[in-house]
Protein backbone atom coordinates (compact mmCIF):
# COMPACT_ATOMS: atom_id res chain seq x y z
CA UNK A 1 0.00 0.00 0.00
CA UNK A 2 2.84 2.35 1.02
CA UNK A 3 4.71 1.47 -2.19
CA UNK A 4 1.59 2.13 -4.23
CA UNK A 5 1.18 5.60 -2.60
CA UNK A 6 4.91 6.37 -3.17
CA UNK A 7 4.53 5.52 -6.87
CA UNK A 8 1.53 7.82 -7.21
CA UNK A 9 3.33 10.79 -5.67
CA UNK A 10 6.41 10.23 -7.82
CA UNK A 11 4.28 9.86 -10.92
CA UNK A 12 2.43 13.03 -10.07
CA UNK A 13 5.66 14.95 -9.53
CA UNK A 14 7.08 13.62 -12.78
CA UNK A 15 4.06 14.68 -14.80
CA UNK A 16 3.32 17.99 -13.09
CA UNK A 17 1.85 20.50 -15.53
CA UNK A 18 4.63 22.90 -16.53
CA UNK A 19 2.21 25.81 -16.14
CA UNK A 20 2.44 25.36 -12.37
CA UNK A 21 6.21 25.86 -12.68
CA UNK A 22 5.64 29.06 -14.71
CA UNK A 23 3.14 30.24 -12.11
CA UNK A 24 5.55 29.67 -9.23
CA UNK A 25 8.36 31.48 -11.07
CA UNK A 26 5.99 34.40 -11.76
CA UNK A 27 5.01 34.55 -8.08
CA UNK A 28 8.68 34.33 -7.05
CA UNK A 29 9.43 37.35 -9.24
CA UNK A 30 6.32 39.48 -8.61
CA UNK A 31 6.18 39.33 -4.79
CA UNK A 32 9.76 40.61 -4.20
CA UNK A 33 9.08 43.40 -6.69
CA UNK A 34 5.93 44.46 -4.83
CA UNK A 35 7.50 44.28 -1.36
CA UNK A 36 10.75 45.84 -2.67
CA UNK A 37 12.89 42.97 -1.44
CA UNK A 38 16.55 43.71 -2.27
CA UNK A 39 19.86 42.07 -1.50
CA UNK A 40 23.29 43.64 -1.10
CA UNK A 41 25.64 42.50 -3.86
CA UNK A 42 29.26 43.22 -2.88
CA UNK A 43 31.44 44.20 -5.82
CA UNK A 44 33.58 41.45 -7.32
CA UNK A 45 37.17 42.06 -8.44
CA UNK A 46 36.34 42.15 -12.15
CA UNK A 47 33.62 44.80 -11.73
CA UNK A 48 35.70 46.75 -9.20
CA UNK A 49 38.52 46.82 -11.75
CA UNK A 50 36.28 48.64 -14.26
CA UNK A 51 35.07 51.00 -11.55
CA UNK A 52 38.65 51.74 -10.44
CA UNK A 53 39.69 52.43 -14.03
CA UNK A 54 37.02 55.14 -14.45
CA UNK A 55 37.68 56.43 -10.94
CA UNK A 56 41.42 56.75 -11.53
CA UNK A 57 41.32 58.53 -14.90
CA UNK A 58 41.96 62.31 -14.80
CA UNK A 59 38.90 64.56 -15.28
CA UNK A 60 38.23 65.28 -18.93
CA UNK A 61 39.22 61.78 -20.08
CA UNK A 62 37.45 60.62 -23.21
CA UNK A 63 35.21 57.56 -22.81
CA UNK A 64 33.46 55.94 -25.77
CA UNK A 65 30.32 54.05 -24.70
CA UNK A 66 28.88 51.74 -27.31
CA UNK A 67 25.23 50.66 -27.10
CA UNK A 68 25.22 47.29 -28.79
CA UNK A 69 21.86 46.06 -27.60
CA UNK A 70 18.16 46.73 -27.94
CA UNK A 71 14.99 46.91 -25.88
CA UNK A 72 14.85 43.11 -25.53
CA UNK A 73 17.80 43.12 -23.10
CA UNK A 74 17.16 46.53 -21.57
CA UNK A 75 16.58 45.16 -18.03
CA UNK A 76 20.14 43.84 -17.99
CA UNK A 77 22.07 46.38 -20.06
CA UNK A 78 20.41 49.69 -19.20
CA UNK A 79 21.37 49.67 -15.48
CA UNK A 80 24.98 49.16 -16.60
CA UNK A 81 24.79 52.16 -18.94
CA UNK A 82 23.16 54.30 -16.26
CA UNK A 83 25.70 53.42 -13.56
CA UNK A 84 28.77 53.83 -15.78
CA UNK A 85 27.53 57.14 -17.23
CA UNK A 86 26.72 58.50 -13.77
CA UNK A 87 30.19 57.61 -12.61
CA UNK A 88 31.92 59.02 -15.70
CA UNK A 89 30.06 62.34 -15.60
CA UNK A 90 30.50 62.62 -11.84
CA UNK A 91 34.26 62.32 -12.39
CA UNK A 92 34.14 65.01 -15.09
CA UNK A 93 34.93 62.71 -18.00
CA UNK A 94 33.66 63.32 -21.51
CA UNK A 95 31.42 60.62 -22.93
CA UNK A 96 30.81 59.71 -26.56
CA UNK A 97 27.71 57.60 -27.22
CA UNK A 98 27.80 55.36 -30.29
CA UNK A 99 26.05 52.15 -31.37
CA UNK A 100 26.92 49.11 -33.45
CA UNK A 101 23.29 48.02 -33.30
CA UNK A 102 20.49 49.88 -35.04
CA UNK A 103 18.43 49.54 -31.87
CA UNK A 104 21.24 51.08 -29.78
CA UNK A 105 20.45 54.81 -30.27
CA UNK A 106 17.03 54.37 -28.65
CA UNK A 107 18.76 52.96 -25.60
CA UNK A 108 21.34 55.75 -25.47
CA UNK A 109 18.48 58.25 -25.87
CA UNK A 110 16.81 56.64 -22.87
CA UNK A 111 20.04 57.13 -20.93
CA UNK A 112 20.12 60.79 -21.97
CA UNK A 113 16.50 61.36 -20.92
CA UNK A 114 16.69 59.40 -17.65
CA UNK A 115 20.19 60.18 -16.41
CA UNK A 116 22.13 62.90 -18.21
CA UNK A 117 19.38 65.51 -18.53
CA UNK A 118 17.90 64.80 -15.10
CA UNK A 119 20.99 64.33 -12.94
CA UNK A 120 23.58 66.35 -14.86
CA UNK A 121 21.68 69.33 -16.31
CA UNK A 122 24.85 71.45 -16.14
CA UNK A 123 26.67 69.16 -18.57
CA UNK A 124 26.74 70.69 -22.04
CA UNK A 125 25.99 68.80 -25.22
CA UNK A 126 29.02 68.77 -27.52
CA UNK A 127 31.34 69.71 -24.64
CA UNK A 128 30.75 67.04 -21.98
CA UNK A 129 28.74 64.47 -23.89
CA UNK A 130 27.79 63.70 -27.46
CA UNK A 131 25.35 61.35 -29.14
CA UNK A 132 26.87 60.03 -32.37
CA UNK A 133 24.29 57.36 -33.08
CA UNK A 134 24.40 54.14 -35.04
CA UNK A 135 26.59 53.21 -37.98
CA UNK A 136 26.37 49.99 -39.93
CA UNK A 137 29.36 47.77 -40.57
CA UNK A 138 29.82 45.71 -37.40
CA UNK A 139 33.51 44.87 -36.91
CA UNK A 140 34.29 46.54 -40.25
CA UNK A 141 33.11 49.80 -38.73
CA UNK A 142 35.43 49.38 -35.72
CA UNK A 143 38.27 48.59 -38.11
CA UNK A 144 37.65 51.84 -39.98
CA UNK A 145 37.24 53.90 -36.81
CA UNK A 146 40.60 52.63 -35.62
CA UNK A 147 42.34 54.30 -38.54
CA UNK A 148 39.96 57.22 -39.21
CA UNK A 149 37.02 58.07 -36.97
CA UNK A 150 35.80 60.94 -39.14
CA UNK A 151 35.35 58.85 -42.27
CA UNK A 152 32.33 57.22 -40.69
CA UNK A 153 31.15 59.87 -38.25
CA UNK A 154 30.84 63.16 -40.14
CA UNK A 155 27.82 64.31 -38.12
CA UNK A 156 26.22 63.53 -34.78
CA UNK A 157 22.82 61.84 -34.53
CA UNK A 158 20.98 65.14 -35.06
CA UNK A 159 22.93 66.02 -38.20
CA UNK A 160 25.34 68.55 -36.66
CA UNK A 161 28.77 68.51 -38.32
CA UNK A 162 31.19 67.06 -35.78
CA UNK A 163 33.82 69.67 -36.73
CA UNK A 164 31.69 72.25 -34.95
CA UNK A 165 31.53 70.33 -31.67
CA UNK A 166 34.31 71.17 -29.17
CA UNK A 167 34.73 67.67 -27.74
CA UNK A 168 35.32 66.21 -31.22
CA UNK A 169 38.35 68.40 -31.92
CA UNK A 170 40.87 65.89 -30.55
CA UNK A 171 39.16 62.82 -31.95
CA UNK A 172 40.68 61.47 -35.14
CA UNK A 173 40.97 57.73 -34.47
CA UNK A 174 39.82 55.31 -31.78
CA UNK A 175 43.30 55.62 -30.27
CA UNK A 176 42.34 59.11 -29.11
CA UNK A 177 39.94 57.62 -26.56
CA UNK A 178 41.14 56.82 -23.05
CA UNK A 179 38.62 54.03 -22.56
CA UNK A 180 36.09 52.12 -24.66
CA UNK A 181 33.10 50.59 -22.90
CA UNK A 182 31.09 48.10 -24.92
CA UNK A 183 27.64 47.35 -23.54
CA UNK A 184 26.20 44.53 -25.54
CA UNK A 185 24.02 41.50 -25.82
CA UNK A 186 25.43 39.68 -28.84
CA UNK A 187 27.21 40.24 -32.12
CA UNK A 188 28.70 42.76 -32.68
CA UNK A 189 29.50 43.83 -29.15
CA UNK A 190 32.10 43.87 -26.42
CA UNK A 191 34.06 40.99 -27.95
CA UNK A 192 34.44 42.86 -31.26
CA UNK A 193 35.57 46.02 -29.45
CA UNK A 194 38.33 43.92 -27.84
CA UNK A 195 39.30 42.15 -31.06
CA UNK A 196 39.20 45.08 -33.46
CA UNK A 197 39.97 48.08 -31.23
CA UNK A 198 41.46 47.10 -27.88
CA UNK A 199 44.02 44.56 -29.00
CA UNK A 200 45.30 46.13 -32.25
CA UNK A 201 45.04 49.72 -31.01
CA UNK A 202 46.26 49.07 -27.47
CA UNK A 203 43.19 50.92 -26.16
CA UNK A 204 41.75 49.99 -22.75
CA UNK A 205 38.44 48.21 -23.26
CA UNK A 206 35.87 47.43 -20.59
CA UNK A 207 32.27 46.50 -20.84
CA UNK A 208 29.18 44.73 -19.78
CA UNK A 209 27.01 42.14 -21.44
CA UNK A 210 23.92 40.09 -20.78
CA UNK A 211 24.50 37.10 -18.53
CA UNK A 212 24.12 34.73 -21.51
CA UNK A 213 27.17 36.33 -23.14
CA UNK A 214 29.20 36.79 -19.95
CA UNK A 215 30.98 33.39 -19.81
CA UNK A 216 32.39 34.07 -23.30
CA UNK A 217 33.89 37.38 -22.18
CA UNK A 218 35.51 36.44 -18.86
CA UNK A 219 38.62 34.87 -20.50
CA UNK A 220 39.59 38.33 -21.84
CA UNK A 221 40.05 39.66 -18.30
CA UNK A 222 42.51 41.00 -17.15
CA UNK A 223 44.94 41.13 -20.06
CA UNK A 224 42.61 42.17 -22.87
CA UNK A 225 39.87 43.84 -20.85
CA UNK A 226 40.21 46.25 -17.89
CA UNK A 227 36.97 45.16 -16.23
CA UNK A 228 33.60 43.68 -16.97
CA UNK A 229 29.99 43.55 -15.78
CA UNK A 230 28.34 40.17 -16.31
CA UNK A 231 24.57 40.43 -16.51
CA UNK A 232 22.29 42.07 -13.99
CA UNK A 233 24.53 40.99 -11.15
CA UNK A 234 27.47 42.85 -12.72
CA UNK A 235 25.31 45.97 -12.98
CA UNK A 236 24.20 45.60 -9.35
CA UNK A 237 27.83 45.24 -8.28
CA UNK A 238 28.76 48.42 -10.15
CA UNK A 239 25.86 50.26 -8.50
CA UNK A 240 27.09 49.02 -5.11
CA UNK A 241 30.63 50.30 -5.84
CA UNK A 242 29.27 53.65 -7.03
CA UNK A 243 26.99 54.20 -4.01
CA UNK A 244 29.81 53.19 -1.65
CA UNK A 245 32.00 56.06 -2.90
CA UNK A 246 29.18 58.46 -3.86
CA UNK A 247 26.29 57.89 -1.38
CA UNK A 248 24.27 60.68 -3.03
CA UNK A 249 23.35 58.18 -5.76
CA UNK A 250 21.86 55.69 -3.26
CA UNK A 251 18.29 56.49 -4.28
CA UNK A 252 18.78 56.74 -8.05
CA UNK A 253 21.45 54.14 -8.80
CA UNK A 254 19.57 51.07 -7.63
CA UNK A 255 17.67 49.61 -10.57
CA UNK A 256 19.88 46.53 -10.81
CA UNK A 257 20.09 46.15 -7.02
CA UNK A 258 16.28 46.27 -6.79
CA UNK A 259 15.85 43.58 -9.42
CA UNK A 260 18.39 41.29 -7.76
CA UNK A 261 15.78 40.47 -5.07
CA UNK A 262 13.51 38.62 -7.54
CA UNK A 263 16.66 36.96 -8.92
CA UNK A 264 17.33 35.38 -5.53
CA UNK A 265 13.78 34.13 -4.98
CA UNK A 266 13.40 32.87 -8.57
CA UNK A 267 16.72 31.04 -8.31
CA UNK A 268 15.60 29.44 -5.03
CA UNK A 269 12.46 28.16 -6.77
CA UNK A 270 14.51 26.85 -9.72
CA UNK A 271 17.06 25.17 -7.43
CA UNK A 272 14.15 23.67 -5.47
CA UNK A 273 12.67 22.21 -8.66
CA UNK A 274 16.09 20.84 -9.71
CA UNK A 275 16.52 19.13 -6.33
CA UNK A 276 12.95 17.80 -6.45
CA UNK A 277 13.47 16.54 -10.00
CA UNK A 278 16.65 14.74 -9.03
CA UNK A 279 15.06 13.18 -5.93
CA UNK A 280 12.11 11.81 -7.93
CA UNK A 281 14.52 10.60 -10.61
CA UNK A 282 16.60 8.70 -8.04
CA UNK A 283 13.55 7.24 -6.29
CA UNK A 284 12.09 6.11 -9.60
CA UNK A 285 15.43 4.58 -10.59
CA UNK A 286 15.60 2.69 -7.27
CA UNK A 287 11.99 1.53 -7.64
CA UNK A 288 12.62 0.20 -11.15
CA UNK A 289 15.70 -1.69 -9.89
CA UNK A 290 13.62 -3.12 -7.00
CA UNK A 291 10.85 -4.52 -9.25
CA UNK A 292 13.19 -5.72 -12.04
Amino acid at each position, binding site marked *: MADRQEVTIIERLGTVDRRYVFLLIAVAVIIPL*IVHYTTAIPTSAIVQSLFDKIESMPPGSKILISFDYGPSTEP*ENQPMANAVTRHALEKGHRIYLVALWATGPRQSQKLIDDVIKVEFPDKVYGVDWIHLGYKAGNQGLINTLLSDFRTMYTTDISG*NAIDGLPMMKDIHTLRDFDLIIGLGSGFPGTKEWI*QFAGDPGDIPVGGGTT*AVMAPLLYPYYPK*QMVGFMGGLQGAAEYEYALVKIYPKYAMRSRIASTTMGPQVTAHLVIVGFIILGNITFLIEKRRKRKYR
Partner: protein
Amino acid sequence: MILDAQPILSSPLANAVGVWIASLLTLMIFSFLYKDNPFYKFAEHLFVGVSAAYWMCVGFWTTLIPNMIARLWPSHMGGVLPAVVGNQREWGYVIPLVLGLILLTRLVTRIAWLSRWAMGFVIGFAAGTNFTRYLQSDFVSQIHSTMVPIYEPGATTAATIGNIFSQIVIVGGVVSALIYFYFSKEHKGIFGRTARVGIWVLMAAFGASFGYTVMARISLLTGRMGFIIQWISGSSW
Protein backbone atom coordinates in the same frame (compact mmCIF):
# COMPACT_ATOMS: atom_id res chain seq x y z
CA MET B 1 23.23 76.29 -33.27
CA ILE B 2 23.81 72.76 -32.04
CA LEU B 3 20.73 70.57 -32.21
CA ASP B 4 20.36 68.54 -29.05
CA ALA B 5 19.22 64.92 -29.10
CA GLN B 6 15.43 64.64 -29.00
CA PRO B 7 13.49 62.66 -26.36
CA ILE B 8 11.83 59.42 -27.50
CA LEU B 9 8.22 60.33 -26.66
CA SER B 10 7.84 64.02 -26.08
CA SER B 11 4.18 64.33 -24.97
CA PRO B 12 2.68 62.70 -21.84
CA LEU B 13 -0.30 61.44 -23.88
CA ALA B 14 1.96 59.72 -26.42
CA ASN B 15 3.93 58.24 -23.54
CA ALA B 16 0.73 56.93 -21.86
CA VAL B 17 -0.52 55.38 -25.11
CA GLY B 18 2.89 53.79 -25.66
CA VAL B 19 2.91 52.28 -22.16
CA TRP B 20 -0.61 50.86 -22.62
CA ILE B 21 0.26 49.29 -25.98
CA ALA B 22 3.52 47.86 -24.62
CA SER B 23 1.79 46.44 -21.53
CA LEU B 24 -1.04 44.81 -23.48
CA LEU B 25 1.41 43.32 -25.99
CA THR B 26 3.51 41.96 -23.10
CA LEU B 27 0.43 40.25 -21.65
CA MET B 28 -0.44 38.85 -25.09
CA ILE B 29 3.03 37.32 -25.38
CA PHE B 30 2.88 35.90 -21.84
CA SER B 31 -0.51 34.31 -22.64
CA PHE B 32 1.40 31.68 -24.65
CA LEU B 33 2.60 30.21 -21.34
CA TYR B 34 -0.98 29.10 -20.72
CA LYS B 35 -1.53 27.86 -24.27
CA ASP B 36 -1.27 29.02 -27.87
CA ASN B 37 -3.97 31.56 -28.72
CA PRO B 38 -4.89 34.27 -31.28
CA PHE B 39 -3.68 37.11 -29.02
CA TYR B 40 -0.22 35.60 -28.88
CA LYS B 41 -0.21 35.03 -32.65
CA PHE B 42 -1.23 38.66 -33.23
CA ALA B 43 1.54 40.00 -30.96
CA GLU B 44 4.12 37.65 -32.50
CA HIS B 45 3.30 38.68 -36.08
CA LEU B 46 3.17 42.34 -35.13
CA PHE B 47 6.62 42.03 -33.53
CA VAL B 48 8.14 40.43 -36.62
CA GLY B 49 6.58 43.01 -38.93
CA VAL B 50 7.53 46.01 -36.81
CA SER B 51 11.09 44.68 -36.36
CA ALA B 52 11.58 44.24 -40.10
CA ALA B 53 10.16 47.70 -40.83
CA TYR B 54 12.25 49.29 -38.09
CA TRP B 55 15.50 47.74 -39.34
CA MET B 56 14.71 48.79 -42.90
CA CYS B 57 13.99 52.40 -41.93
CA VAL B 58 17.04 52.62 -39.68
CA GLY B 59 19.22 51.05 -42.35
CA PHE B 60 17.96 53.57 -44.92
CA TRP B 61 18.30 56.72 -42.80
CA THR B 62 21.49 55.85 -40.93
CA THR B 63 23.43 53.93 -43.57
CA LEU B 64 22.23 54.53 -47.12
CA ILE B 65 21.58 58.26 -46.73
CA PRO B 66 24.72 59.39 -44.82
CA ASN B 67 27.17 56.76 -46.10
CA MET B 68 26.10 56.63 -49.74
CA ILE B 69 23.69 59.27 -51.01
CA ALA B 70 25.23 62.10 -48.98
CA ARG B 71 28.70 61.28 -50.32
CA LEU B 72 27.67 60.99 -53.95
CA TRP B 73 25.11 63.83 -54.06
CA PRO B 74 25.96 66.08 -51.08
CA SER B 75 24.35 69.15 -52.63
CA HIS B 76 20.94 67.42 -52.58
CA MET B 77 21.05 66.77 -48.83
CA GLY B 78 19.83 70.20 -47.71
CA GLY B 79 16.63 68.89 -46.13
CA VAL B 80 18.21 65.84 -44.49
CA LEU B 81 21.86 66.49 -43.64
CA PRO B 82 22.51 70.25 -44.00
CA ALA B 83 26.03 69.75 -42.62
CA VAL B 84 27.22 67.92 -45.75
CA VAL B 85 25.75 70.24 -48.41
CA GLY B 86 29.06 71.98 -49.11
CA ASN B 87 31.11 68.77 -49.28
CA GLN B 88 32.86 67.52 -52.41
CA ARG B 89 31.38 64.53 -54.24
CA GLU B 90 33.29 61.33 -53.36
CA TRP B 91 33.42 59.28 -56.56
CA GLY B 92 34.89 56.23 -54.82
CA TYR B 93 31.45 55.50 -53.40
CA VAL B 94 30.23 54.54 -56.88
CA ILE B 95 31.85 51.12 -56.28
CA PRO B 96 29.74 50.21 -53.21
CA LEU B 97 26.71 51.68 -55.01
CA VAL B 98 27.26 49.31 -57.95
CA LEU B 99 27.94 46.36 -55.64
CA GLY B 100 24.79 47.17 -53.68
CA LEU B 101 22.70 47.37 -56.82
CA ILE B 102 23.97 44.10 -58.26
CA LEU B 103 23.15 42.45 -54.93
CA LEU B 104 19.52 43.12 -55.83
CA THR B 105 19.86 41.10 -59.05
CA ARG B 106 19.03 38.04 -56.95
CA LEU B 107 15.44 39.09 -57.50
CA VAL B 108 15.78 38.47 -61.27
CA THR B 109 16.56 34.81 -61.94
CA ARG B 110 18.18 35.38 -65.36
CA ILE B 111 20.89 37.71 -64.00
CA ALA B 112 20.95 36.47 -60.40
CA TRP B 113 24.54 35.26 -60.87
CA LEU B 114 25.70 38.89 -60.79
CA SER B 115 24.89 39.10 -57.08
CA ARG B 116 27.70 36.61 -56.40
CA TRP B 117 30.21 39.38 -57.09
CA ALA B 118 28.81 41.49 -54.29
CA MET B 119 28.44 38.51 -51.96
CA GLY B 120 32.00 37.46 -52.77
CA PHE B 121 33.23 40.92 -51.81
CA VAL B 122 31.31 40.84 -48.51
CA ILE B 123 32.45 37.33 -47.59
CA GLY B 124 36.04 37.98 -48.66
CA PHE B 125 36.21 41.17 -46.62
CA ALA B 126 34.68 39.50 -43.55
CA ALA B 127 36.91 36.42 -43.77
CA GLY B 128 40.09 38.43 -44.31
CA THR B 129 39.33 40.89 -41.52
CA ASN B 130 38.16 38.30 -39.02
CA PHE B 131 40.93 35.79 -39.62
CA THR B 132 43.77 37.99 -38.41
CA ARG B 133 41.86 39.47 -35.49
CA TYR B 134 40.50 36.13 -34.24
CA LEU B 135 43.94 34.60 -34.58
CA GLN B 136 45.51 37.37 -32.52
CA SER B 137 42.81 38.00 -29.89
CA ASP B 138 41.25 34.57 -29.47
CA PHE B 139 44.21 32.32 -30.09
CA VAL B 140 47.62 33.90 -29.50
CA SER B 141 46.51 36.25 -26.71
CA GLN B 142 44.46 33.53 -25.02
CA ILE B 143 47.44 31.15 -25.01
CA HIS B 144 49.48 33.97 -23.55
CA SER B 145 46.82 34.58 -20.89
CA THR B 146 46.84 30.88 -19.97
CA MET B 147 50.61 30.66 -19.53
CA VAL B 148 51.07 32.99 -16.59
CA PRO B 149 53.68 32.61 -13.80
CA ILE B 150 52.37 30.63 -10.84
CA TYR B 151 54.60 32.56 -8.43
CA GLU B 152 54.62 36.35 -8.22
CA PRO B 153 57.41 37.89 -6.12
CA GLY B 154 56.18 40.16 -3.34
CA ALA B 155 52.71 38.58 -2.99
CA THR B 156 51.46 37.41 0.43
CA THR B 157 51.53 33.70 1.26
CA ALA B 158 47.74 33.41 1.05
CA ALA B 159 47.70 35.21 -2.30
CA THR B 160 50.51 33.02 -3.60
CA ILE B 161 48.71 29.81 -2.57
CA GLY B 162 45.49 31.07 -4.17
CA ASN B 163 47.36 32.09 -7.29
CA ILE B 164 49.12 28.74 -7.61
CA PHE B 165 45.81 26.91 -7.18
CA SER B 166 44.09 29.11 -9.78
CA GLN B 167 46.85 28.66 -12.35
CA ILE B 168 46.93 24.89 -11.85
CA VAL B 169 43.14 24.75 -12.36
CA ILE B 170 43.34 26.93 -15.49
CA VAL B 171 46.27 25.12 -17.14
CA GLY B 172 45.08 21.67 -16.02
CA GLY B 173 41.54 22.44 -17.16
CA VAL B 174 42.61 23.69 -20.58
CA VAL B 175 44.98 20.74 -21.21
CA SER B 176 42.51 18.07 -20.03
CA ALA B 177 39.64 19.59 -22.06
CA LEU B 178 41.86 19.66 -25.14
CA ILE B 179 42.83 16.03 -24.56
CA TYR B 180 39.15 15.07 -24.48
CA PHE B 181 38.81 16.40 -28.04
CA TYR B 182 41.92 14.56 -29.26
CA PHE B 183 40.53 11.47 -30.99
CA SER B 184 43.67 10.18 -32.74
CA LYS B 185 44.63 8.22 -29.63
CA GLU B 186 42.39 5.83 -27.74
CA HIS B 187 41.15 7.25 -24.43
CA LYS B 188 42.74 4.60 -22.18
CA GLY B 189 45.12 4.67 -19.22
CA ILE B 190 46.40 8.03 -18.01
CA PHE B 191 45.33 9.62 -21.31
CA GLY B 192 41.78 8.38 -20.78
CA ARG B 193 41.73 9.51 -17.15
CA THR B 194 42.90 13.00 -18.19
CA ALA B 195 40.18 13.08 -20.85
CA ARG B 196 37.71 12.15 -18.08
CA VAL B 197 38.89 15.19 -16.10
CA GLY B 198 38.36 17.19 -19.30
CA ILE B 199 34.70 16.10 -19.35
CA TRP B 200 34.26 17.37 -15.79
CA VAL B 201 35.88 20.66 -16.74
CA LEU B 202 33.53 20.99 -19.72
CA MET B 203 30.53 20.10 -17.55
CA ALA B 204 31.53 22.77 -15.02
CA ALA B 205 31.85 25.30 -17.86
CA PHE B 206 28.46 24.32 -19.30
CA GLY B 207 26.94 24.48 -15.82
CA ALA B 208 28.27 28.00 -15.30
CA SER B 209 26.98 28.98 -18.72
CA PHE B 210 23.55 27.49 -17.96
CA GLY B 211 23.45 29.31 -14.62
CA TYR B 212 24.19 32.61 -16.34
CA THR B 213 21.51 31.88 -18.94
CA VAL B 214 18.94 31.32 -16.19
CA MET B 215 20.00 34.59 -14.57
CA ALA B 216 19.62 36.39 -17.90
CA ARG B 217 16.12 35.03 -18.50
CA ILE B 218 14.99 35.88 -14.96
CA SER B 219 16.41 39.39 -15.43
CA LEU B 220 14.31 39.86 -18.55
CA LEU B 221 11.23 38.45 -16.81
CA THR B 222 11.83 40.79 -13.87
CA GLY B 223 12.11 43.72 -16.26
CA ARG B 224 8.79 42.91 -17.91
CA MET B 225 7.05 42.20 -14.59
CA GLY B 226 8.36 45.47 -13.21
CA PHE B 227 6.97 47.24 -16.26
CA ILE B 228 3.55 45.60 -15.78
CA ILE B 229 3.50 46.48 -12.07
CA GLN B 230 4.45 50.05 -12.96
CA TRP B 231 1.62 50.12 -15.52
CA ILE B 232 -0.97 48.80 -13.08
CA SER B 233 0.08 50.85 -10.07
CA GLY B 234 1.08 53.96 -12.00
CA SER B 235 4.27 54.30 -9.95
CA SER B 236 7.92 53.36 -10.35
CA TRP B 237 9.14 50.20 -8.65
